Each structure stands twice: as structure tokens, then as C-alpha cells.
């Protein structure tokens, strides 16, 4: 019964856009699940929902039905600012050749006991 006209009364002059009338898609939400107390929330996936309350409920149905979690976060996907995939090289450049960034690079001074 979804889609299609169920009124059966579409006059020729009615400003109907027809059964395939475009419908605004529900916004996208990112779902984070905390699997047990003491752990952090981990990204589990995403879903569509009309609002935040329904997003939490849909997240419960889609991501926690088999005992996966004790807590859920949903975040509008539009609120997440991501790093630019094209800037990968500059952002995540390999630390190779930069040994001085690691503590093990430095020799321990003589007589320092608790370092």
C-alpha cells in the first residue's frame, strides 16, 4: 500500500504530481554503540530516520538486537566534519624516517633510574 494513489479521486485538473511524487529522503545518522561499561562508543554504521528520537530507536533495531550494547549514540551525519580524503598524504604521512618522534630514539642518560 506504500506509494501509489490510494485516494482514487485524482481529477484531471488536480495539481497532483502523480504516484511517483518525489519525497524528501530522511536524513542520515551515524550510529555509535558502547558494547559494555567502561569501553568507548564505537562507530557501528549509519541509518536513515526522520528525527533524533526515531534514529535512536532504529539504531536499537539495526545494531543492538543481539546483545551488542549497553548504550547508543546517534549523530546527524551532517554534523561530522571529516578529514579531506585528498589530503591523505599530508594528514597521515608515514612517521618512517622520523625516529626522533619516539622515546626509544633517545639514549638513556647514565644514572637515571626510573625512566
Amino acid at each position, binding site marked *: 500500500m506504500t506509494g501509489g494513489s490510494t485516494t482514487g479521486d485524482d481529477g484531471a485538473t488536480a495539481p497532483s504530481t502523480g504516484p511517483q511524487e518525489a519525497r524528501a529522503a530522511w536524513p542520515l545518522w551515524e550510529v555509535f554503540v558502547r558494547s559494555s561499561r567502561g569501553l568507548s562508543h564505537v562507530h557501528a554504521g549509519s541509518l536513515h530516520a526522520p*528525527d533524533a528520537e526515531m534514529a535512536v530507536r*532504529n539504531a*536499537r*533495531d539495526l545494531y543492538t538486537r543481539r*546483545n551488542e550494547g549497553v548504550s547508543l549514540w546517534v549523530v546527524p551525519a551532517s554534523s561530522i566534519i571529516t578529514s579531506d580524503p585528498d589530503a591523505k598524504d599530508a594528514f597521515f604521512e608515514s612517521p618512517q624516517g622520523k625516529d626522533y618522534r619516539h622515546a626509544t630514539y633517545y639514549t638513556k642518560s647514565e644514572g637515571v633510574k626510573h625512566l
Partner: protein
Amino acid sequence: MSEASATRITPGNALRPEDIALLETRPADAVAQYALGLGDDALILAQRLGWWISRAPELEEDVALANIALDQIGHARSFLTYAGRAWDRTEDDLAYFRREPEFRSVHLVEQPNGDFARTIARQLVVALYQWELYSRLAGSTDPTLAAIAAKAVKEVDYHRDHSIQWVLRLALGTEESRRRMIAGLTLTWPYVEELFADYPLIDALGDAGVRPSSLRAPFDAAVQAVLDEADLELPAVPGAVGGGRLGRHSEHLGYILAEMQVLAREHPGASW
């Protein structure tokens, strides 16, 4: 997990149909008949809700309705397994090899799905009714009925929330969604009456069951609270003739059973 099947995982000590099948005690005939009615309600509703799988307005809603249908199948399995203990019949015997007049479900659950709003209207009534019923049945003098109800009421609590959320959104949404919600409620309301009609079996049950008429006042209060919040009015329509608990059904049940039972009857003894 040491369970053989991943789908059989039940956390904690929750009662499973498989456990009920192994019970030493057999229910009295009146208790079994009562459990049969509640099990049939859940089974037929699950069959109806299953229709929505792949047809719900959005994928997420598809999953939500399917989960509710699965919960109802779980309740049906427990009730039917327990009822069957009285007559040496399995849950499958009762689900697939009874004829229409032998079913004891109420007319509400066999009503057509209609559009999404009509299904939500039916869900609102069923969920509020089942919540009032199971939260009281959890105090039944029959320990098995009490255990089944105590487990079911937690799931029905979510069904209740799901339907209320949707009633609010449809009623307070667009002009069209509100029109459909009102139409759905109006089509559903005639079948509310039967849920609260006492029938002869109830007198034989004592405190093992819950007297349907005793649930009417709390149900009405719960409905009114939702309708107030959704700015809706109680549909002013007369009650339909019931009789499902006595095996008298509307024209819809036969079609549901034909679809639900065809495989089991075509291949008797098959397992799945």
C-alpha cells in the same frame, strides 16, 4: 557461546519455548485454552506484520516491524507450546494443523494491514492492550504463564513505544499523514470492544488468568493520553461483533491460515 545455533541465544535465564516443552507439569485444560487464545493472537498478528517485510515505507521501518513480528512469534511459540502440553500437541501442530474454527484469536489481529497508518493504529491498540495484559499476567498463580508474560512485557513495552512514536508523527505530520492516521484509527476501533469482553472460560481460570474487562479502564487511560498528545479524538464508532475467542472469525482469517499453513500441510512432518 556453546549453543548449537546462533539464533537460539537467549541471555540470562529467560524462559524459552524449548524449556516449556520439557516441563513436567501439564496445565489444566482451562489454563491451556486461555494460553491458546493469547498464543493465537500473537501468531496471527506476527503473520500479518510479516507482510510488511520488504514493503515498509523505509528500510529502517521494515526492520522495526519485522522485529516486532519476531517478538510476537516468540510469544506465540511459548503460549502454544505450553497449551499443547495439556493435549500432547506441539507448537507446530497447533499453529499449522488446526482449522479456522479452532483458532481462538481476536478479530483485531486478523484485520487487513491497510496502509502504514492503519497498521500503526492496530499496533497501538494491540501494544497498549498486551502491555496492560502481560504486566498483570506476570503475577499469575500459574508460574509458566507468569514467566511467559514477564518476558513478553519487556518486548511489548518497546512495541508500545514504537506505535506511539508513529501515531504522534503521522497525526502531527502533514495534512495527508494526519488524514490517514484518523482513517486508520476509525477502521481499527470497532475491534477494540472484543479485547475486553469476558468469556465463559475466564470464570474457570481464577487467578491464573486476567479478566479482560478489568483491563478496560487502564487501557482507555493509556489510549487517551496518546490521543491527547497527538491532538486526536477517540473514534465514535460502534463495536463490531466479536467471538474470536469462541472460534467465530471474520472472513480474513481463512486467507491468513491458507498462506501460513500451506507449506506444513503440503509436506507433513517436514522440519525447518
